[in-house]
């Protein structure tokens, strides 16, 4: 197995799906000759041509809406929002249209499409190139929202998303693109949507996270292990529909839960995770369900000090774990 970065795994997955199925095509801003501003579609324009690697006008609502229409007429579009922060103009198309089409047509129509969005901060992207949007999309039934944390999952989940008959929002952490590496098999595989994964077993405490934060949790768990506290780390992977069973089982097993997310605290997706556990695992809990999150400020600042202030990191998580362990 080759070791790849996140971005390579995503690129490979997308390319293989385009090779496998003629109906798959990509559309978005600068995905053509430029290969996407992060290079996910690097080389695609040459390999697949302008028709299947479509540079669109700067119009996110149209990108999402045209993808819906193309999906209805037999294609399998993979749209790119250049940054998750710029997906807001498409929220009407994504939330009110894509998410509701199977439901509102009583199963007559469905929308097999994927919208990829680079998200997340810590990359000097400031207010508008750092946002987390999973809480907004995760709230909308009809959408499947995915966040991979490692190259293996990224490729397998992306393939599953492209083959899924319903709209999938596929969020890729920008900080992880080149930083996170891992083994990826050469043969075709998928990772099932809707399933969380226990990526580290432990019995004293559960840490729940996804995307970049998963790695910070693993780092913090390593530290905790040195002090004899075995932290079970759960990778949510599919934000919505949420695999409550896996999360709740882990919470029941350890009795203590830390939920970590990069998004600002209030109404972040970890609130749903916490509430689900508070409702279903109350009798098993030995301590409060603790959240380590971005602060409730409007967005991530550009300057280094304030960006660092915003981002959860292993130290902040470790502190919360220690406090909870001592509860």
């Amino acid at each position, binding site marked *: 197995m080759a070791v790849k970065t996140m971005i390579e795994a995503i690129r490979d997955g997308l390319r293989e799906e385009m090779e496998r199925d003629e109906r798959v095509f990509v559309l978005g801003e600068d995905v053509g000759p430029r290969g996407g501003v992060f290079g996910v579609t690097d080389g695609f324009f040459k390999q697949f041509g302008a028709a299947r690697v479509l540079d669109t*006008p700067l*119009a996110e609502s149209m990108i999402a*809406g*045209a993808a819906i*229409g193309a999906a209805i007429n037999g294609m399998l579009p993979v749209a790119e929002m250049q940054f998750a922060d710029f997906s807001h103009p498409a929220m009407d198309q994504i939330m009110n249209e894509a998410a509701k089409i199977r439901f509102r*047509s*009583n*199963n*007559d129509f469905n929308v097999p499409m994927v919208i990829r969005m680079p998200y997340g901060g810590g990359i000097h992207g400031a207010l508008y190139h750092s946002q987390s949007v999973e809480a907004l999309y995760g709230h909308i039934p009809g959408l499947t929202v995915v966040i991979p944390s490692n190259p293996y999952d990224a490729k397998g989940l992306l393939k599953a998303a492209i083959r899924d*008959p319903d709209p999938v929002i596929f969020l890729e952490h920008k900080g992880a693109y080149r930083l996170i590496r891992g083994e990826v098999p050469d043969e075709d595989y998928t990772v099932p949507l809707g399933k969380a994964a226990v990526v580290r077993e432990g019995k004293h405490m559960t840490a729940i996270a996804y995307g970049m934060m998963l790695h910070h949790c693993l780092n913090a768990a390593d530290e905790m292990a040195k002090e004899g506290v075995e932290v079970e780390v759960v990778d949510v992977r599919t934000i919505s529909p949420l695999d409550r069973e896996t999360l709740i089982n882990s919470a029941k097993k350890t009795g203590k839960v830390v939920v970590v997310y990069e998004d600002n605290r209030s109404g972040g997706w970890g609130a749903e995770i916490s509430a689900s556990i508070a409702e279903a695992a109350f009798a098993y809990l030995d301590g409060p369900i603790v959240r380590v999150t971005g602060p409730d400020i409007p967005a991530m600042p550009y300057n280094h000090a304030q960006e660092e202030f915003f981002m959860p990191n292993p130290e902040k998580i470790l502190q919360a774990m220690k406090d909870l362990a001592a509860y």
Partner: protein
Amino acid sequence: MSTPTKQKVESGSRKAKAKQPRHEELGLGKEQLQEMYYYMLLARSLDERMWLLNRQGKAPFVISCQGHEAIQVGVCFAVERGKDWFLPYYRDLGICLCLGMTPREAMLQHFAKQADPNSGGRQMPGHYGLKRLKIVTGSSPVATQLCHGVGVALASKMKGDDEVTVISHGEGATSKGDWHESLNMAGIHNLPVIFLCENNQYAISVPVPQQVAGGSVAARGEGYGFPGVAVDGTDVLEVYAATKEAARRARAGEGPTLLEAITYRLTAHSSDDNDRTYRGREEIDMWRAKEPLPKFRQYLLDNGVATEEELAEIKKRIDAEVNDATDWAEVQPNPEASDATKFIYAPAEERA
């Protein structure tokens, strides 16, 4: 806003050439014309019945096609029904009927019955969607269907399918960002799309001068590099002719056409509206005089396309169909509460 301005009529009514009636010039025969009349009257009659049922408390909501019949029927007859795609909006009862939605189906929707083929009673009346007729499911948010239609047409082009996509909407919809983004995209890719603006002078209460800067929707076509054509939307033949040309262009790879069909909304916006707060009797009366149905009726009689008897026969047939549809649909089963959780995602076996 009071009179229908004909900004630019590029096709239609080429009166010259001796005395050949317009429909013959357009290659339309007696049978087709009678059928057009049938659909116009069917749409109107069903629509009127829907209001009646609403007033009787049997259906909470109506939104009306009255005043739009000539547009909707004219357009449908000019494209290839069953082959071409439609993205209608809530006024397009006439379009859906022409494409093959039955009166019974229309009434299933009106009563929000379980068997409503548009949505199983989930959506409000007027929210169409029937895959078998290539009518793409629509929503309430205005103008979103423009983007979908552009995507449908893009897919047709990518697959090499000889399909035209008709996207209809009101003039209020032209103010939305989605409208612009869609026309721009269609223009860039020369997509086989007909943008059909059914300009009925109002968006609920807001009249054209407060809605459309410059006053003309058709005038915007040029800015996107394709024709914008305004036609008299109360004249079914004029609409037919303009659509025919737009469809020809689309099929020939010449790109989109923006068609503005000018008419008047004869009813209130919907059963929830009270239009006396924002428009006067005289204005309505003035437009009533130009109504599409009597006008076309007269044309049929004047040109010997139909006799009074034939027209009476058509009306009788329609009355029977409307009665049948109403009576039948009313007693069909209502949706089950527990079915509300169905069809959110594909069943597990269809998933990857």
